[in-house]
């Protein structure tokens, strides 16, 4: 067993909650991958005579207003929600950290320019930005991903910038220079691995936000549209029925959404512990 595997096992054993979060994340990934193949009912098949039935053994989560099985829809929705959030966070992370690294390293005018850009982005509320992009480029899932990515970019840029400028004067950076590393190599191979641990927590928190963002946007009709199952849409559709007593239509998708975000949040600490070598004994 390599040192890394041993360390991962140690972290998980130390912290059962982290282990639980990892298990939850694993489950979400599995459902995203094979969900559509294992669901009992076709998520798109409507059967209006079966509409709005409360949870039963056949339909553990009940049926919605078009008679579709909510459980199947919730499971299938996992794939698209995960896709959106992972894609958005990945884009955010890559571009945000690059901007932050560059700004933090070079300082001066470059840093100020990055700072202005980040400030501008932060001034936009997500919905305004998303609507703007949709209005300009059309209502598609890809555009929603871009909007979410842009909105979350400042978190990474600022964190990367702070961590980089804090370490810029460190001995090991000067040592790297004396060892023949140019600026690019220092940023990528010497500094970046060191700023990664705090960014890990940020990534996982962002995954949670990204899902909420996607859900929120589809709630108002941007991005994913019916009949595609997505947790946000399902909550939106279900919201209409709460007052009339059909609580299950909104509750189950909402709960799963909440658990997914919860998982991601807990994941961050565990990931950081794994990635940061200082926590290795």
């Amino acid at each position, binding site marked *: 067993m390599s*040192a890394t595997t041993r360390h991962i096992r140690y972290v998980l054993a130390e912290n059962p909650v982290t282990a639980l979060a990892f298990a939850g994340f694993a489950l979400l990934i599995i459902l995203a991958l094979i969900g559509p193949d294992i669901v009992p009912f076709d998520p798109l098949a409507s059967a209006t005579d079966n509409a709005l039935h409360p949870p039963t053994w056949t339909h553990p989560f009940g049926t919605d207003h078009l008679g579709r099985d909510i459980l199947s829809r919730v499971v299938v929705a996992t794939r698209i929600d995960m896709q959106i959030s992972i894609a958005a966070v990945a884009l955010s992370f890559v571009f945000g950290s690059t901007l932050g690294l560059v700004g933090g390293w070079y300082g001066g005018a470059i840093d100020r320019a990055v700072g202005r850009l980040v400030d501008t982005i932060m001034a936009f509320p997500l919905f305004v930005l998303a609507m703007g992009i949709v209005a300009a480029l059309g209502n598609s899932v890809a555009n929603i991903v871009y909007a979410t990515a842009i909105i979350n970019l400042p978190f990474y840029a600022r964190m990367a910038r702070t961590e980089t400028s804090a370490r810029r004067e*460190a*001995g*090991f950076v*000067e*040592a*790297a*220079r*004396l*060892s*023949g*590393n*140019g*600026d690019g*190599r220092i940023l990528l191979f*010497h500094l970046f*691995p*060191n700023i990664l641990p705090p960014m890990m927590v940020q990534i996982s928190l962002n995954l949670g936000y990204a899902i909420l963002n996607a859900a929120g946007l589809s709630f108002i009709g941007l991005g994913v549209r019916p009949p595609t199952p997505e947790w946000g849409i399902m909550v939106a559709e279900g919201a209409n029925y709460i007052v009339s007593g059909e609580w299950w239509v909104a509750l189950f998708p909402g709960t799963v959404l909440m658990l997914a975000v919860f998982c991601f949040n807990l994941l961050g600490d565990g990931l950081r512990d794994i990635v940061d*070598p*200082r926590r*290795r004994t």
Partner: protein
Amino acid sequence: MTALLDVAGLCRRFPVGKRTLHAVDGVSFDIAPGEAVGLVGESGCGKSTLVRMLTRVLDPSEGSIHFDGREIGQSPAARFTRTPERALIQMVFQDPTDSLNPRFTAFDCIADPLLRLKGPWTRDSLAARVHELAGMVGLPVPLLGRFPHQLSGGQKARVGIARALGPEPRLLILDEPTSALDVSVQAVVLRMLDELRHRLGVSYLFVSHDLNVVRLLCDRVMVMYLGKLVETGTVAEVFDHAAHPYTRALLSAIPGLDGTLGERVRLTGEPRSPIDPSPNACRFHGRCPIGEDRCAEHMPVPQDLGGRHRVACHLAGGTP
């Protein structure tokens, strides 16, 4: 024999608002191949700036640096990385904890300059060279897989030394390499450094404020104060026949094991400011226990006192 390092009139100035800070002001010296030269001075004397110019991470404002006959001070620091001299001038840092990348194992730390400056390597040849270096500094091979926080202070210091020796430098600058170490480990490291110097023929520039250690390891010593070299000479000349009042004050302040509070040369007042200093007044004037009017009117220039002993003081050799 030509000097390995020949520094002439080296200056470095930093703008501070509308004024200028003279961190290094007209420093000239040379280091012969295989020689160990100590550089002593207190905080604010400019030795860190001088060192950074010599390792070429900083550009001089004025003056020349000749390494093995070639001028290296003119091309900008950014380009120095790609010249062959990069491998020939290396440094051992003061704080072993700060100077090792926390994400690199000891092996990675030592291998990095080898990969960047020497080569080509195969996996085996690289490992062989890293093991060879570890052996040279007395670092047990099993420790190579550890991260810095899993190593003791002495072990980290050895990693730093092995890393610096990897590219086969001809000049090694050691910045207080043992100040963070316990006395018992220090002795071992100092002996190792001495032995390595004689075996590999590397020159040392040993920067330290611990004069006892400098005396042990170095052939010659230079004393720096507020950007200028105030006294240089062999260790015997400077330590036993200190001519500059600052050197005397420094020597008298070292606590000796004989327990006596010897003849202390006490310095009064605050050091002069290195910002926009007067070009006519001796930098030490005002804090110096001795002094005359001419000390404020003419900047003292280095004068020969015989042998390799030079001092920049109008009252050189005068009793405090």
